[in-house]
């Protein structure tokens, strides 16, 4: 495959990510501390208050998936006794350690100084960090975020999280970093976050336009990059979203679709989809091509909400710094129950005038894939739009069967076409 064509915002992001990897891998030279943490419930602004660099094992696994090295790491982890059914993000991470723990910049990852576990719905996170704690023998700070089992959060839940922040997380981070917590510093970062969040939401909502100037799934993973990783709260992320908004606006002005990796704008949009579930990373471009080759654009997705549901109105609030972190964690998509996920997806299908809901169910994700068939059927029932179900995996290349997925996707698109033309007509 030829080199993917990248837009300016993508290059900006690439540069930000590279700089972060440099900051992580040069910690012994700079003396900076490194925290490992997860995307959903990521407390980047708080870590920044302690000058701690944010390292995200999920993002490392994604990077390794896209660079096509995760397969070997997974085999390495399996050699050490991790079964075939274990989350492949975990195995890619554990396997990477077994193979020298080399970061994407070619330098070895240093051991983290602290593991910050914001638990937001995925129980694998706990097991994963138990393994990392065993390996690194470093302090682990657990922020327990109560699951929104009833579909909403309560004041008690919020207070409980704030209490943990005050009594466990902040003192723990002070101890690891040697930096005193400054709540005004946190307020400033949160202000930056809110500004960038406005930008992200604006971009994602442009999926309502026809033709859509964005792809809210394959393109979406780039749009959410800075927000979900080590840059929320930084001035660079504001610059990034300003640039991204300019690009999207230019496409709207010229009635253009999103840019595909081939460099051409995807204008011939025949099907508008809402997608649930993460993309496959090992065959990302091939997977995306299966969509745009057939004229399918994703107008909204739940994956772009796993690191925060800003489109539902939430913004980080500098006036209530700790409470806002609690609200953020409670509202992540992973922390929502099944009926709420159904509500959100059905709303997307309607508001984004989609042709239906497609679910990419992840083979090795036991906590998140459960209930997805029920979700599909419920959304079908509520919206009257057909749903479809495909299966792949995050970063295990063995679970990506191109022929099978293509077959299902093409069948789904032709089914939409057939329904659209009405009965008795050829699809």
């Amino acid at each position, binding site marked *: 495959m030829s080199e993917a064509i990248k837009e300016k915002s993508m290059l900006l992001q690439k540069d930000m990510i590279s700089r972060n990897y440099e900051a992580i891998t040069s910690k012994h030279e700079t003396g900076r501390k490194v925290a490992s943490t997860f995307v959903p419930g990521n407390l980047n602004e708080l870590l920044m208050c302690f000058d701690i660099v944010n390292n995200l094992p999920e993002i490392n696994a994604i990077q390794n998936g896209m660079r096509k090295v995760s397969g070997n790491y997974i085999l390495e982890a399996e050699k050490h006794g991790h079964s075939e059914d274990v989350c492949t993000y975990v195995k890619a991470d554990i396997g990477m350690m077994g193979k020298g723990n080399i970061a994407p910049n070619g330098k070895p990852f240093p051991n983290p100084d602290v593991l910050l576990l914001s638990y937001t719905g995925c129980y694998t996170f706990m097991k994963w960090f138990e393994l990392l704690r065993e390996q690194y023998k470093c302090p682990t700070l657990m922020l327990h975020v109560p699951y929104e089992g009833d579909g909403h959060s309560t004041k008690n839940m919020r207070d409980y999280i704030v209490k943990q922040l005050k009594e466990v997380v902040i003192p723990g981070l002070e101890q690891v970093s040697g930096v005193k917590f400054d709540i005004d510093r946190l307020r400033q970062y949160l202000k930056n976050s809110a500004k960038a969040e406005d930008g992200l939401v604006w971009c994602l909502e442009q999926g309502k336009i026809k033709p859509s100037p964005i792809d809210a799934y394959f393109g979406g993973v780039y749009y959410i990059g800075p927000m979900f990783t080590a840059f929320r709260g930084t001035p660079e992320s504001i610059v990034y979203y300003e640039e991204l908004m300019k690009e999207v606006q230019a496409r709207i002005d010229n009635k253009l679709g999103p840019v595909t990796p081939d460099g051409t704008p995807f204008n011939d949009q025949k099907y508008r989809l809402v997608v649930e579930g993460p993309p496959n990373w090992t065959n990302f471009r091939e997977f995306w091509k299966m969509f745009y080759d057939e004229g399918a654009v994703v107008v909204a997705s739940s994956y772009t909400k796993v690191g925060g549901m800003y489109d539902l109105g939430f913004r980080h609030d500098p006036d209530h710094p700790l409470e806002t972190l609690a609200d953020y964690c409670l509202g992540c998509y992973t922390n929502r129950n099944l009926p709420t996920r159904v509500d959100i997806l059905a709303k997307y299908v309607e508001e984004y005038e989609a042709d239906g809901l497609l679910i990419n169910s992840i*083979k090795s994700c036991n906590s998140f894939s459960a209930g997805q*068939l029920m979700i599909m*059927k419920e959304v*079908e029932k509520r919206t009257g739009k*057909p*749903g*479809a*179900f495909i*299966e792949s995996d995050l970063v295990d290349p063995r*679970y*990506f*069967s191109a*022929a*099978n997925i293509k*077959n*299902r996707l*093409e*069948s789904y698109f*032709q*089914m939409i076409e*057939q*329904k659209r033309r009405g*009965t*008795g*007509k*050829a*699809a």
Partner: protein
Amino acid sequence: MRCFIGIDLGSTTTKAVVMDENTQLLGRGITNSRSNYDTAAAVSKQEALIDTRLTLFRRGLSAVPEVSGKVDSILADLERNFRHVQFLEQLDDLEQTCVRNVKGPRYVGKETGVNTALAEVFKQLRQSSHALFQPGARRKSDFFRDLAGSDFMQFGEPVARDAGLPFDLLVNVYDKSIIEVENRPPAGDMEGKFLRALEKASGSGDIDSASVVKPVKDALAIPLEETYVVGTGYGRVRLPFPKEHIRSEILCHGLGAHMMYPDTRTVLDIGGQDTKGIQVDPQGIVENFQMNDRCAAGCGRYLGYIADEMNMGLHELGPLAMKSNKTVRINSTCTVFAGAELRDRLALGEKREDILAGLHRSIILRAMSILSRAGGVKDQFTFTGGVAKNEAAVRELRKLIKENYGDVTININPDSIYTGALGGATFAVRAVVN
């Protein structure tokens, strides 16, 4: 006349169906997919057009009072003679290809001897072909490869021995040539071959020429115009037509099942490498579907492995399983573990028929899970694909459908192998006529 063609390129066989503009079935053809989809598509299409000609002959002859009551035997004679003409033509091609392939270091100095031997073998093949296409003769297969191959081996060995040549020299040249011949697009001039077959049949007295020749010639004079072709199946992207002529096999199976049984609402297709559960609306439009993921556990190919492991023919599995009166529980339908599971059960002293009954049940249990994921079984239910021919699988399916969904009409068509191609041909008609 306008012909609408559906071609289903499966992993094992390729099927074609020809329809007229009123969606009346005219002809069907099947061939092995032979890892060469272009040729397989061309051959199956030609076979379906041959079948179409036979349908047209039947229509023509039905209006001739003199042949009343004899149409079936006339058509059988005509087809038999046609197949013979076609066989001889392919034999000529095979001989010429063999002669061209007598080259390379192994044949140095032996060319004349090998060529003489080949000429003798092909002479005998031609002679024996008369018996092969005699009225009432039973042929082991309808594929040229199978027919020519077994006779070549039978005649080749003594010929080579008498000529003082190693037999493997002939086998070698045959193996190389049959692949070339099989992968060549089929020869044209179908009408010419039918005319020659007609002459042959009349000459041998098989057919009373006076009343038959004219209607047959009239039917042959009808041009078969390929108005629209729709391709489906796993090899569909290899078909040499534009994208809008390609349909997903799920849609084709749904529509094909609807054409066979218009009241179908749920379709189960168990093919060589996948299992599909499909829901269709009263017009045959797919509403929902589920299929197995990348793993082919519990599909037709699984039974193929089991047959190999047991040293049996695929078609013998079902009948043996029917003899069982005790079901062994088989937990894994994994094709890779099939052999291990089987040997394990045999080692425990279980009977072959009981193990096989368990295997069939486990396949159907897996299909039931796919069906329930696709939204369950609604009345009427149509079962298609190669596994639908297996009586033990069908018995288990009937049992489980009744247990889980009560009394549901279950349709199983003996020609269900053509379901996908039938759906494709229907799409072709709809694309042009509606």
